[in-house]
């Protein structure tokens, strides 16, 4: 657990945030220049704040009042810097092994070569960073930070220039690392899919101030409602994999069951599902003959609107948030306590490993 109360003064910019990060994966997002990297750098010790206090797992690593400022190498934090900061004079292998060599043998939990293998760097081990593509450099930075088996991992837009396929596999890998070694992670990203798929908590920074701290879905909703830059709200729910057949996999969420695309998962596995609020259609009557694989009956429990977007919360056993237009709301006569049907396609549902 990291508690922080950080003040950082810069000409034209003031970072002033108090909060804490739990032991899960916390996403930090916010517009460019909000202070995300600055906050991470303060925690890592690469920047000294102008004031405040930072504690990591109970240890005060920085305190203005007590004049404490533990040097970065003693903080056991792995950082993937936004600009990579690879060592230009060392080849990929030595870059990855740099921190790994410095930890006692018995604390080495991740093997550099396996990391390289996983991140598709095996053939690049003898290259210097200058001879790598942008995405390759990013992957080396990830490997280098992971190899130190840190107590805390700070990731500053680690996947910004990677293709979707790689992004997915690295995200899954990070989740696996997180659960296997319980390394808390703080993850800066602009990608909602990334945030939703990896993070258990999320923090929204704007202009150096903390604007929200919640579950990613709730925070995203808040931001969406506040007319922020978040395009759409995601329903995030915990589930358990059921049967797979016929290119479909069912996932049980509490008392209900939904269809998703085929997943390479075993029955009984815990998963998290994500479903965009704008991907759900509401019907007043039971629809028939639809291609959509999911039709769930429920009761409207809440309705609110903001800037032309209307949201309803529908309880089908679990609560789902649905975005619809005002005209649809009126036409269907949707109101609290009405019965409605939720309709969504199995391909609208994203399924992630549970953290």
């Amino acid at each position, binding site marked *: 657990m990291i508690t922080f109360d950080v003040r950082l003064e810069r000409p034209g910019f003031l970072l002033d945030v108090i909060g804490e990060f739990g032991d899960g994966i916390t996403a930090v997002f916010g517009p460019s220049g909000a202070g995300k990297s600055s906050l991470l750098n303060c925690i890592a010790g690469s920047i000294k704040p102008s004031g405040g206090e930072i504690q990591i797992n109970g240890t005060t690593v920085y305190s203005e009042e007590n004049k404490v400022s533990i040097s970065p190498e003693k903080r056991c934090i792995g950082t993937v810097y936004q600009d990579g900061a690879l060592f230009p004079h060392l080849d990929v292998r030595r870059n990855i092994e740099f921190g790994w060599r410095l*930890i006692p043998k018995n604390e080495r939990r991740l093997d550099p070569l396996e990391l390289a293998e996983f991140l598709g760097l095996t053939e690049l081990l003898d290259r210097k960073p*200058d001879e790598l593509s942008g995405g390759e450099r990013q992957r080396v930075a990830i490997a280098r930070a992971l190899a130190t088996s840190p107590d805390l991992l700070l990731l500053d837009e680690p996947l910004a220039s990677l293709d979707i396929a790689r992004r997915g596999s690295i995200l899954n890998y990070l989740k696996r690392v997180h659960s296997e070694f319980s390394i808390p992670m703080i993850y800066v990203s602009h990608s909602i899919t990334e945030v939703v798929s990896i993070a258990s908590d999320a923090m929204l920074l704007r202009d150096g101030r903390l604007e929200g701290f919640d579950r990613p879905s709730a925070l995203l909703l808040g931001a969406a409602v506040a007319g922020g830059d978040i395009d759409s709200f995601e329903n995030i729910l915990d589930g358990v994999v059921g049967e797979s057949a016929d290119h479909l996999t069912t996932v049980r969420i509490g008392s209900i069951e939904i269809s998703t695309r085929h997943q390479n998962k075993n029955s009984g596995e815990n998963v998290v599902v994500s479903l965009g609020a704008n991907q759900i259609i509401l019907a007043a009557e039971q629809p028939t003959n639809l291609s959509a694989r999911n039709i769930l009956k429920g009761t409207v429990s809440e309705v609110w609107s903001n800037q032309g977007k209307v949201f309803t919360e529908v309880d089908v056993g679990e609560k789902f948030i649905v975005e619809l237009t005002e005209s649809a709301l009126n036409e269907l006569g949707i109101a609290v306590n009405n019965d409605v049907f939720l309709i969504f396609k199995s391909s609208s549902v994203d399924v992630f490993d549970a953290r």
Partner: protein
Amino acid sequence: MNSDISIVALSLQIALFATAVTLPLGMLVAWLLVRKQFRGKFVLDVVVSLPLALPPVVVGYALLWMVGTNGWIGQASESVFGSTLAFTWIAAALAAAIVSLPLVVRSFGAALAGVDPRLEIAARGLGAGSVRTFLTITLPLAYRGVIAGVLLGFVRALSEFGATIVVAGNIPGRTQTVPSAIFTRISAGDTDAAWRLALVSVVLGVIALAIHNWLLKRSPLSGVGRSNEGRR
């Protein structure tokens, strides 16, 4: 000819000794000047740069005074060795070191200043202490300037004459270096021998330069962004 060899050997010994002093000392001073803020920084800067501003002869006299029986180095060495260092090869090495230190410090300083501090920060974050970071990150990245500084310092030490002859004299077999031997040959009218020794100096310089260039090729950053595929 035979004595030429021993003169060269002595010169090398003196220059190597001087380099062995200026390398760590110059690195320390350069690091202080470039990376630290402290009172008396400018004074330190001036003190190490002085020998460059003064004619070597003056440096020689100042040093002679310091190692003499009245100077603090002289008194220290008198109590340790029982004699002053004046007119010994150590005095020559000292003179060479002092005269080449400014060159070494400037080169090292510019080299250290060129290292991106973010990389040092990254190394610290990966668990390297400040000494290890300096040795594994800063130094290799400053490599080019460091070996340029060593070359300058070593070659300058090899060719040092003005200060050396004052403080160490020109005693054949004991303190006569190549430069003072050249001076002696010229004075004695033996121009051929003087040119022969000058040629030896040139050869030594060329060898040092060749080693320097070879080390440069082995530089951890060599070729980066340069040699590869005709980037322009």
